[in-house]
């Protein structure tokens, strides 16, 4: 075991605390992960030494800050195996990345009669931006169905759905509610065969497994820093360079123009075209540091670790009478979602908090999927690199106590 794994919990200072008289068991990682010392230190170091506005400055600090910022971009390029740094646009997070594609690419390319293909397991952030652009352009939405509680995409009818009218296929890599890992490379290839572009929501995969845009063959990939051991407020849109350079700006302002006149302006190429105003360079530096951290652990090792904990939780929870676990029985991402008949998820989460366990209960920004499965809410336990088997046992014990209390 590499040294970073052996003492991993010590690298996350937040874990060393009691909550309601119990050691904190943090199982809300699909909402946001905790941050290691190295990421916190990178942020600290940037603001203590290098902070200055980027790109336009001619003084030493500004040049250092620019190097830090562009260094982070290069680091992210390598992390997702993109062809060029120009393909990495910094955003506020997954949501803004998807909104950028939908608004910019969508406004230039969608028209009445076109179809936007989504899946029934999309997070609201991969539904609503498409609804907005559909309304503006006259395009319509179409959904790939989910099989049921198994939570797999029903691909048997994909040929029927992927008609030539489909101009874009946007889907999640890993479902934030089901834990399903979708066959992203296959889906991208199928979309490409009808001339549709692909937008992959990698929010729940980027911190948990190797994500390689070339191997996947996607046109766009969106993710957030804070779900991969980095800080909030920074995210990435990867885009194929030829597509990005053909797209109109998303926002206007400083930093994204080559020439401004009183009545019209010309744009810089990507990534500057899409980064109007002072960019979030401080957090970008922290994102670069989290790429280093995750690579030091090994991303295949992370996938195996998180997947094993999710499977262990799945198998132990399945023994509780009356539990309904949703999502695939086989391989899954690092989370498990479940519901108890007669006990609402929010009551379960309140009881778990009493035991120092942080869970999430609700619709997980997946209201259409919940409706499809005939549920209003589920409890979700999601795992990360610092979670341990004993925490799965604490979760299961807490669930059993709660069920007993409510007499369900």
């Amino acid at each position, binding site marked *: 075991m590499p040294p970073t794994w052996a003492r991993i919990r010590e690298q996350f200072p937040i874990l060393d605390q009691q909550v309601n008289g119990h050691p904190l068991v943090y199982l809300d990682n699909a909402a946001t992960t905790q941050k290691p010392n190295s990421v916190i230190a990178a942020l600290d170091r940037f603001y203590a030494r290098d902070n200055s506005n980027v790109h336009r400055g001619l003084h030493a600090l500004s040049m250092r800050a620019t190097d830090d910022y562009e260094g982070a971009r290069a680091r992210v390029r390598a992390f997702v195996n993109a062809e060029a740094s120009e393909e990495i646009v910094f955003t506020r997070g997954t949501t803004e990345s998807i909104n950028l594609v939908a608004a910019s690419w969508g406004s230039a390319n969608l028209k009445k009669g076109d179809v936007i293909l989504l899946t029934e397991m999309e997070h609201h952030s991969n539904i609503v931006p498409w609804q907005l652009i559909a309304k503006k352009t006259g395009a319509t939405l179409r959904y790939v169905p989910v099989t049921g509680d198994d939570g797999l995409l029903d691909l048997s009818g994909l040929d029927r759905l992927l008609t030539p009218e489909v101009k874009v296929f946007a889907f999640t890599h890993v479902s934030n509610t089901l834990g399903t890992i979708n066959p992203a490379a296959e889906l991208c290839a199928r979309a490409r065969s009808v001339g549709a572009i692909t937008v992959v929501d990698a929010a729940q995969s980027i911190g948990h497994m190797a994500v390689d845009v070339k191997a996947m063959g996607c046109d766009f990939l969106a993710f957030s820093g804070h779900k991969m051991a980095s800080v909030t407020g920074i995210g990435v849109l990867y885009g194929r360079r030829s597509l990005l350079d053909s797209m109109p700006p998303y926002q206007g302002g400083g930093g994204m123009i080559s020439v401004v006149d009183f009545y019209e302006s010309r744009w810089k190429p990507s990534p500057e075209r899409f980064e109007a105003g002072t960019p979030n360079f401080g957090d970008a530096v922290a994102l670069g540091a989290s790429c280093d951290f995750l690579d030091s652990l090994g991303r295949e090792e992370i996938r195996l670790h998180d997947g094993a904990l999710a499977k262990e939780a799945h198998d132990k929870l399945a023994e509780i009478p009356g539990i309904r676990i949703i999502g695939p029985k086989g391989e899954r991402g690092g989370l498990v979602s479940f519901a108890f008949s007669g006990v*609402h998820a929010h*009551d379960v989460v309140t009881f778990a908090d009493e035991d120092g366990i942080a869970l999430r209960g*609700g619709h997980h920004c997946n209201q259409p999927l919940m409706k499809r499965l005939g549920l*209003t809410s589920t409890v979700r336990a999601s795992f990360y690199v610092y979670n341990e088997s004993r925490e799965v046992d604490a979760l299961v014990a807490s669930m059993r106590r709660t069920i007993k*209390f*409510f*007499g369900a």
Partner: protein
Amino acid sequence: MSADLSDLYQNVILDHNRRPRNRGRIPTANRSAHGDNPSCGDQCDVFLRLDGDRIAEISFDGSGCAISQASASLMTTQLKGKTAAEAEKLYKEFHEIVTTGKEPEEISDLGAFAGVHAFPARIKCATLSWHAALNALRGDVAPATTESHTD
């Protein structure tokens, strides 16, 4: 269990959650309103049969946590027979109970909700059905939402 948690899940609340009173649509209802809590997905419909200014019958339907379901159930038992003005006054008392934890002056099952004040995130769970009921009484057709008021 901590004192806070046992205060939250009092027997009155557990009982109303397990055996909700006046659940389901009244066929003779002449007023209804829908309430949403978008942050947690809770939903509540309240149905009334108003006889003049008085609530002759009241029921609810919906889904949500034990606090929201028990609150809706208990509310129906408290509002039946009340006038609109009396209902508004009772809601003010209830709101005071769930936000401050003060027990009501007169002995009332509503006091069971005093424990909610220690869990600020759950106050909206307790008040959702009341907002729907008051909207129905006022004849307000817009759905009640926990996002449009301060509690």
